[in-house]
């Protein structure tokens, strides 16, 4: 056991050394996710009116961002390896992804996955943000939940007016993974808005208040979710 720990220790020292030597402040890059409700910032557990009588309250908003890639005129210039980030509105720190050592700048496009790819889904247990204790892994059927949205609305004829959307699925024809693309001239920081009001406008809360397994509906809603990620501004 000692031997293994030592090897890993040496290995990580080595990696750190390389990145410290090469990285400068201009190599850094950050993405901040900012959930909004129409024109307002989204606040957890708070009612957002949608008309004179009804409102929507969001209680859980969590999703995975993975496989971040940088492009210059459609040519891949940098890929962040093994990057899996759980974004959780209830954990402010998680909303910002800090990346180091972006190679071969400049870039004019970023792509990333909303969710977890199928290979990772069939490769057993992982730690950190992918640890099954994070509540983003189904137990009765293998697979990550890519996007989890739970809340309440008077429009839902359910117990406590709850709605729950757990979107995932890694096998065709219910592969729910989405690719997000942002056209962005080289920057050190970007903010990406996710508009929950725009997403939920596409859902009939009165009849379709729950998705909890891989299905056609899950894939369709995942596509709608992906369409509502938008760059706010750049620095």
């Amino acid at each position, binding site marked *: *056991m000692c*031997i*293994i*720990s030592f*090897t*890993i220790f*040496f*290995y990580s020292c*080595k990696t750190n050394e390389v990145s410290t030597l090469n990285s400068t402040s201009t190599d850094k890059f950050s993405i901040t996710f900012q959930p909004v409700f129409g024109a307002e910032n989204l606040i957890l557990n708070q009612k957002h009116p949608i008309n004179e009588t009804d409102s929507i309250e969001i209680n859980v908003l969590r999703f995975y961002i993975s496989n971040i890639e940088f492009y210059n005129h459609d040519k891949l210039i940098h890929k962040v390896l093994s990057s899996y980030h759980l974004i959780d509105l209830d954990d402010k720190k998680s909303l910002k992804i800090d990346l180091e050592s972006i190679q071969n700048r400049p870039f004019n496009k970023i792509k990333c996955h909303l969710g977890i790819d199928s290979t990772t*889904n*069939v*490769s*057993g*247990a*992982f*730690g950190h943000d*992918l*640890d*099954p*204790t*994070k*509540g983003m*892994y189904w*137990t*009765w*059927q*293998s*697979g990550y939940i890519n996007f989890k949205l739970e809340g309440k609305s008077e429009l839902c004829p359910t117990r406590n007016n709850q709605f729950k959307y757990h979107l995932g699925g890694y096998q065709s024809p*219910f592969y729910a993974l989405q690719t997000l693309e942002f056209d962005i001239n080289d920057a050190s920081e970007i903010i990406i808005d996710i508009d929950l009001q725009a997403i939920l406008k596409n859902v009939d809360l009165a009849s379709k208040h729950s998705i909890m397994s891989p*299905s056609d509906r899950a894939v369709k809603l995942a596509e709608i979710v992906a369409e509502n990620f938008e760059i706010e501004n750049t620095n």
Partner: protein
Amino acid sequence: MKKLLFFLSILLLTAFHQSDNNPFYIPKKWKKPTYDFTKNPLSIAKIDLGKALFYDPILSRDNTVSCTTCHSQYNAFTHVDHSLSHGIDDKIGTRNSPALMNLAWQPIFMWDGSINHLDMQALAPISHPNEMGETIENVVLKLQKSSIYPTAFYTAFGDSAITGEHTLKAISQFLLTLVSANSKYDKVMRKEAKFTKQEKNGYKLFKTNCSTCHQEPLFTNHQFENNGLPIDTTLNDFGRMNITKKPKDAQKFKVPTLRNIEFSYPYMHDGRFKKIREVLNHYTKNIEHNPTLSEHLQQPIILTSNEKIDLTAFLLTLSDRAFLFNPAYSYPKSFFDTK
């Protein structure tokens, strides 16, 4: 330098692995395991930790149900004498727990293939309200608070901060060591023993009638098949179709291994048959020809009563007493005594 370190670490890991006196091995002429050991290299400390977790009811909500409740060693790690396995609060499940062995070669888990990797398998019974009724989050909290586990995790993984990943990987390690390849059948194949005349005839009948699905040496082809069981309308279990949502998968269930069949009764996904005799009568007399019936069962299987006796004699040669009574798999009293 990086390459050299990598090479050295592989070399050391291999040396470490081979010096282990662990019960996992690849029997001669068996194919390469499906499990990727490079992502979870075996070590005695991890196997021991996994064995303790397997036997510890701490995995259940009220600390009453352990893995071994439904997977006891003397029954080839299944739940003897219960058609449907039961769990927490005496709740009864909807299926018969499968026997556990040779899992390193198994590509997909559960009767309906709902679980895609051995590491993730334990999450299902831990979380099921009728089995352990717990969550992996809470299991990790309980383990962290215990007097023995932080040290055991440190010894095994070099980290006393317990995670879901390490908990599941440790359980996998113990399960991977459950290799059954020392039955009379195996000894005959290795030319260390001889079948009786009856067993030999049974083997011939087996190869003619059963071996397409129950392929040697694992005695399963790891496929999902409809073996012509009429649907039990009190359960309405459509098996594989529940997962794939495809009508062509209706009433298909995973082909189970026949190894240690003498000890793994009752049989079928819902444990409807108690005796091997009933199973053979099903295949010869009672197959229901419904639309998704296995292509391998379209032609009738015809066996005389003497042939059934011979076939049964062969099936009993699949019992592996060295496996069923291997002390390496038994309750780890010394681990729990260190409290």
